[in-house]
């Protein structure tokens, strides 16, 4: 009943919004995953080098537990989706998913990480642990700005990814101020944002995925990550198109 009503409301609200992702399940949130800033280094790597090296830097929500978890998580799914979208380009996606790190902790690890991996694109997932710790949003914003600057200086394009939408812990973890902070920093620093909070909330409201479930099984989690990988691939390809996003204007 809950799903049916939610789905009905969703259909009435969002009917007619054009989507571009291949998988219709994921596509209902495609309009929330539009690139709002260009990725010039990625564009050059695709055009000239015909290879693309991506590094996902994040916490435990960038991976899934268990022996097969990493293969089902969004970094691996992103690699598959990008390879399909960019025939003839060698796409490699590595992930550095270490639990329990704030944005500041991660920035401290950037210099050595970048020297070792030299990615063309860094996807920086953060915010949840900062929210759990109640870290001041202003110092969170400063860490984001520092991190983006260091990544740019190391020659990498940046996509930032904000916290997951987790309805059952919403009264305990105030992720919204951190998700918002990431939106504004992304606009001001002119880097694309993958608005994971908004995308997952939308799926939850439409009933696409049941995020309330109590389960040990990985199936829904794997589908969610697959969809995140697909939408992320769409965002990256769009941001890397020469005329996909007007450069200089983040919108």
């Amino acid at each position, binding site marked *: *009943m*809950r799903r049916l*009503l*939610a789905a009905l*409301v969703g259909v009435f609200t969002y009917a007619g919004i054009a989507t571009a992702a291949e998988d219709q399940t994921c596509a209902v949130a495609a309009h929330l995953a539009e690139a709002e800033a260009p990725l010039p280094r990625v564009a050059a790597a695709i055009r000239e080098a015909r290879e693309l090296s991506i590094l996902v830097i994040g*916490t*435990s*929500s960038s991976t*899934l*537990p*268990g022996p097969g*978890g990493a293969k089902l998580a969004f970094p691996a799914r992103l690699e598959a989706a990008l390879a399909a979208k960019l025939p003839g380009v060698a796409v490699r996606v590595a992930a550095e998913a270490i*639990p*329990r790190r704030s944005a500041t902790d991660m920035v401290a690890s950037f210099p050595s990480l970048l020297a070792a991996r030299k990615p063309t694109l860094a996807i920086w997932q953060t915010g*949840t*642990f900062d929210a*759990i*710790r*109640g*870290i*001041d*949003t*202003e110092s969170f*914003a400063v860490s984001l700005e520092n991190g983006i600057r260091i990544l740019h200086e190391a020659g990498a394009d940046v996509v930032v990814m904000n916290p*997951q939408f*987790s*309805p*059952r*812990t*919403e*009264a*305990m*973890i*105030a992720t919204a101020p951190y998700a*918002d*902070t990431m939106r*504004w920093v992304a*606009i*001001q620093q002119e880097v694309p944002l993958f608005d994971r909070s908004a995308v997952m*909330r939308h799926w939850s*409201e439409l009933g696409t995925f049941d*995020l*309330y*479930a*109590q*389960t*040990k*099984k*990985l199936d*829904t*989690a794997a589908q*969610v990550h697959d969809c995140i990988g697909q939408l992320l691939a769409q965002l990256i390809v769009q941001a890397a198109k020469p005329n996909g996003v007007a450069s200089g*204007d983040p*919108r």
Partner: protein
Amino acid sequence: MQERATRDPSVPLPRPLAAPAPSARDLRLDFFRGLALWFIFLDHIPRNVVNWVTIRNYGFSDAAEVFVFISGYTAAFVYGGIMLKRGFLVSGARIWKRAWTVYVAQIFLFAVFMAEVSYVSRTFDNPLFLEEMNVFEFLRVPDVMLVQAFLLRYTPVFMDVLPLYIVLLLAFPAILWMLLNRPGLALAISVAVYAVSKAFGWNFPSYPSGGWFFNPLAWQLIFVFGAWCGTGGPARLGRVAQSRLLLWAAVAYLAFAFLIVLTWYFPALQVYLPRWLATAMYPIDKTNLDILRFLHFVALAVVVVRLVPADAPWLRSRLAWPAIVCGQHSLEIFCLGVFLSFAGHFAIVEISASVLAQVLISLTGVAIMIASASMFSWYKRSIEGKGPGPRPKSSGAASAGAEA
């Protein structure tokens, strides 16, 4: 500005302090505070379709500003009268007793919150949300967490208004004394504390890191401003407060804020927002009471005071009564509202998130608030024999000491 060190008996008191005029209580305060209490309840249930009605969706400020301002206004009005009649010590003691009551309420709400968190932690199991499970870590050290809660350093989400109110009440005897003796100076100090704390990033520390969600050093501005108005501040401004220019400036600012807010809900409109303006405005900080929020509240107040005269007949009608009765028992209803929003959110998350359930839960919550407030009124009137709460069509003989 004319300052008075000692009160000259030939100088008439500012009107709100010319106690004990029985009809002096301004029903608009009760009405709008009641409304703010409902809005706070609705806003504290995340993903509730009904909270589209609340003012935060139409401008920069929200119900928190209304609540803190009116609390300052009525506290000054009530305790100001006591301070003038019975002196600093008696009024100070009564204000601190009030602060203690609020503190006990806060600890009670914390116990309720703990019950909810403990339940969710026992039943929360999903490989997708491994990272979010870190939030339950603190349940493993209940001693630390309880002590931090007693010290008001650990405040769960949505339980952050009362700690602010406690600090404001603790400081209020001194603030009130200043306001009664040197109102201009009191306001100047308040503005200075606001500016300095902003410049240096001062806030009260919270556990495990960061600062209070409602920074008392910033939010005192709106409370003291409310208290300044409650001790006859606007009357001292003379014609400025009444001018047409101020009204139109306020209307223009409200319209501007509304247009900006539209771009939050319709991202397609963002192209019309100039970059320089976005860079200058954002982020609009709630913790430190961004000046844009403060101005938005002041503009709202200017327009509302003009649109709704204190003697508007509808304020005494049956339709206005539910909000007024809630506003007259603000502390009780506020705490009840926090409790109801926990319960409501819990029901939405754990039982049914359908739109119908959201509407039902919202309406039930507001109905419980109204029923409880009328019960409190009845108790006060019939059992404690204190002044009658204004009933519809009554002569409005509200007791000035009813509630701060």
